[in-house]
């Protein structure tokens, strides 16, 4: 039991405050605790996941000195995904049907803004490194 709660209950026991006043004080303490916990979780979440990445980098370096370096703003990805929620339903059905024909059965209409934010934040941990025996390297990461 926290110190503040005990103090409220002691005051109730001594008759210094009424039951309704004690209830209000305990509710206020509960809200303060919840806000502190939420704040701590948010800070912990930022420490764990880090700040949202801003760019996706694709770097290809071949042994023959043919190099590709692409930097894509992740805001473009997020904006494009959010755009799918506004596409007319008939057009979306055609897009989904075309994608299914290509072997990708994914419904973009099911993407929610929270999912997109979480996806972009998670991309900060994405790193793909491919090295071939010919000396070609492909690296994809977000930062």
């Amino acid at each position, binding site marked *: 039991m926290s110190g503040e709660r005990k103090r409220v209950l002691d005051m109730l026991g001594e008759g210094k405050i009424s039951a309704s006043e004690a209830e209000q004080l305990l509710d206020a303490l509960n809200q303060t605790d919840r806000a502190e916990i939420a704040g701590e979780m948010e800070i912990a979440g930022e420490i764990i996941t880090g700040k949202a990445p801003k760019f996706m980098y694709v770097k290809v370096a071949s042994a023959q000195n043919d*190099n590709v370096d692409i930097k894509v703003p992740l805001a473009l990805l997020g904006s494009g995904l959010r755009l799918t929620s506004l596409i007319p339903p008939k057009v979306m059905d055609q897009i989904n049907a075309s994608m299914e024909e290509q072997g990708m059965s994914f419904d973009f209409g099911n993407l929610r803004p929270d999912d997109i934010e979480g996806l972009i934040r998670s991309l900060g941990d994405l790193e793909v490194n491919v090295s071939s025996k010919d000396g070609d390297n492909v690296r994809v990461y977000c930062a």
Partner: protein
Amino acid sequence: MIPPLLIRIKVKGNKWRRRGRGLWLPIFVLWPFFAVLVLVGLVISLILDVAAWLGGAEYHRYTLLLLKCLGTVSALRGLKVLVDSREQHVEIRLI
């Protein structure tokens, strides 16, 4: 979100290995023209939305769709594509 202000295009061929040709395109000069087009588009989309809503159509969010498309174009800022081969060096940046 601010749309891209400039496009930087740089091309270097084998015989121009040292110098190459670079070009800065000031896109911001075209903003007033695009603003007029966007305004006209917004008016048309608003009329379409109202007509669709009054007609009982299921979909009436053309204005929001247009605004989101503008947001997507604005998000292009920062895009960089660099292709460097033995024959040529091509660089495109949206600033």
